[in-house]
Structure formats: structure tokens, C-alpha cells
């Protein structure tokens, strides 16, 4: 019972959401790391072209949806390069 009560209390206290800018930075960093992971796997020949293309497309969609500013632009460029590589 104790954990359930703790759960309920915690939920009430936890309404905070990280500030917008930080969230954006996190999203961009997360997708840049994903693109790097996909690129290394592709160069090692572990994944075919279409997997890399899927990642690049998904990155482009999600970044342009959630983030703006120059970091986002840099990440979008990286996604584009990856898509080119795997054409």
C-alpha cells in the first residue's frame, strides 16, 4: 500500500515540465545521436539502405515538428546528408 500512496503523492508534486528550450535541445541531441548510430551501423554494413533512410526521414519529421533554431538546422542537415548517403 505504501508504494501506491507514494505514487499518488509524487504525481501530485511532479507536475513540473522542463522549460521549453531545454526540451528542444534534448530532442535535437537525441536525434543527432540516433543519426550517428544509424550512420555507423550503415558504414559497418550492419543495416541496409532503407533502415537508414527510415531513420533520416523520421529525424527530419520529428526535429522540424519539435525544434527550431540553428541546432535544429544543423541536425536537419545531418539527416539530409545521411539520406543522401543511403540513396
Amino acid at each position, binding site marked *: 500500500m505504501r*508504494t*501506491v500512496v*507514494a*505514487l*499518488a503523492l*509524487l*504525481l501530485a508534486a*511532479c*507536475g*513540473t*515540465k*522542463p522549460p521549453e528550450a*531545454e526540451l528542444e535541445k*534534448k*530532442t535535437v*541531441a*537525441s536525434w543527432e*545521436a*540516433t543519426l*550517428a*548510430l*544509424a550512420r555507423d*551501423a550503415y558504414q*559497418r*554494413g*550492419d*543495416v*541496409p*539502405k*532503407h*533502415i537508414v*533512410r*527510415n*531513420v533520416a*526521414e*523520421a529525424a527530419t*519529421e*520529428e526535429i522540424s515538428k519539435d525544434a527550431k533554431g540553428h541546432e535544429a538546422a544543423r541536425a536537419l542537415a545531418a539527416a539530409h546528408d545521411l539520406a543522401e548517403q543511403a540513396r
Partner: protein
Amino acid sequence: MKSGFLQIALGIITSIGGFLEVGSIATAAQAGASFRYGLIWAIVLGTLCLVFLIEMSGRLSAVSKHTIADAVRERFGFDFAVWPRLAELLVNYLVLGAEIGGVCLGLKVLTGIDARWWAVPVALILWFALWVGTLDIIENATSILGLLTIGFVVAAVKMHPDWIPLARGAVAPVFPPHDQSGQYWFTAVSILGATISPYMFYFYSSGAVEDGWGEKDLGSNRITAIVGMSFGALMSIAVLVVSAQVFNPLGIDLKRYEQIALVLTPALHKWGWPIFGISLAVCCFGAAVEISLASAYSIAQTFGWNWGEDEKPAQRARFSLTYTILIFLSIIPLLLGVDPLKQTIFSMALTAIVLPLAILPFVLLLNDETFVGTHRNGPIGNFVVTFTIFMACIVALVTIPLEIVGGG
């Protein structure tokens, strides 16, 4: 009466179909990526409740020869039974659409062709498997194919996880930094919502009645519930651990299945993406079979129609038409381009809201000697069911605000 193994097969398919599906794979992967081992306890807790609820479904059917839907109508009357059935039908419609979406995503990983084009072929194959297949064929085929998910366990072990923090994460919540707690608890709620899915009870209890279980099967019913659900739990934990080893160190938050597709590559190299694609497709297919049947069972049993997967469709016209219509309606959102992962998260939040209404009859039926005679619930069983209802209510109440704060 089927031999022990085939009974365990019912447990394993229920577990594969219900446990390992588009929702649990996604939430386990997201949990591992964002919070490393910090949410394994949610899978363990969900599994514990599930083992009790699945065992009870089997016991109710074996002793009373009634399925849950039959018993709920007979014990509480039609004017009560109809409301949870309608609520579950709506949830099953959405979850079925998400599962078919999962199969399509698996095929997208394997072929690169967009998920939307796979919707109709997958729906046709699913419908055909139910139309022509019997419960035995479907059970055994999915169980064997489901064993492919062992690939996740192999990958998890190959990635050398730190066993101590892993064990600690399995026992109690690991509180994240303050600003991440919204997402932490949302993922925990999603895991519980994905684990305890009502359609599993109806599928398992109808399967038990259709297989003609009797009181002598209570022992193997308990084993089946434990083995089946633990198998599913092991797989889910493996998905979480592999994701923790691959994505967490790189600070990757999983938002799309295209990202999750990379999860097995570091450990299994060339075999990573094919095994992921096949496992995702097979597990979601098993879940889609289970949801379609569970919905048809529950409607047929509420209205007293002839039902049963082992007979020819023409002999069960209304039953077979029910799953046929449900399948082809459920792919509409997918055809309209709704993202399966988003539909999954939403349908799991809805499941959490319907859960209390689906589980409450259990407490009463399993304590009603007219249905289960001397095999009534023990105090532990009652405590777990009441705790699950209480938790399901919290999950239901909290899902909406969390959806806003967390990661909906």
C-alpha cells in the same frame, strides 16, 4: 483433453499475444532508453497482477464452464454487462488498429515499404488465418514463431548489463531527476496499461472453455498462467535492457519505431534488424489474432450466440462476421496515416480507464460459490485483485494529466 504442453501453449500465446505487442515493446524500449533500469519494477508488478488475473480467468472457466463474458451477464444481468462490453469493444478497436500497425511497422523495417501500404494485406492475412484456422493451429504457430523474440534475451545478455542496478530497478522505483518525473511516471503507467490488457482474460477464458478444461486442470492452469506470463515478462525486460544498453548512454529518447528498429543491431550486427522486424511483426500479429477473437467471443457470449473458433465460419455466422467487420474497420486510422505508435500510446491510456470496469467483476465472480464452488479466491488473490483495481483507478485518474505533462 489436450496434453499439458498444448495447455501451456495457450498460456504462451496469451502471453505473447497480450504481453509482447506493439504497446509493450514500445514502452519497454522507451523505458530502457530514458531511464535505464529504473522501470523494470513496473513490468514485474504488471506481470504479478497479470499472473493472478489470468489464473483466475482459467479457474472460472474450468470450474464453472462459463467464460467471463457469460458469467458477468448471468451474474449481473444484461443491463450491467452491456456497458463494460461496449467500452472494451471501443478500446479493442483502437488496440487492434495499433497491433495491425505494429505488424506493418515490422514489415516496414524488413522491406522499407511504408506501413500504410501493408495495412490491407496484413488485415487480409489476419482475417484469413481466423477464417480458415482453428484455435490449435493459431496457438501453436504463434507460440513457435514467438520464440524468435528470444533474440532480445540473447542481445540483452551479449550487451553485459550491470546486474546489481538491474536487480534494484526490478524491485522498487528509481526516482529520476525532478524535471523528468512526469515522463517517468507516464512511462510507468503506460507499461502497466500495456501489460494488463483485458482482452487477454477473455481470450484465455474462452480458450479454456473451448478446450473443455475441467476442475482437474486447475493445477496446470496455475502453471500455464505463471509460465506463460513470466515468458512474456522476460521478453519485455530483455527489450528494456537492450534498449538501456544501446540508447541510454547516447542520451537518445525514443519517439519513433524507426529509431527502435536499431536496438538489436549493436548486439546482433547483420541479424539485428531482421530479427527485430520479424519479432515485432509476429508478436503484433499474435496480439491482433487475440484481440479479434476476444472481441468476437465477448460479444457472442454476451448475446448468447453460437461461438467458437474451431467450427467453420458458416456454422458461427454472427461470431465470424463480428471479427471480420472489426478487423477491416480497425485499419481505417492506419490508412488515414495515423502513426501506429501514437495510436498505441493513446489506446493504452484508454485501456487504463476501462481496466477497473473489466477487473471488478472478477473480484465478485471468483468469490461467488455458485460459479467457482470451493475454488474461491484466497485472501492473497483477493488482495492482488483489489490492489490491481485500486492501481488501475489511479492509473486511469492519472493518465490524462500525465498525458499532458509526460510524453503523450
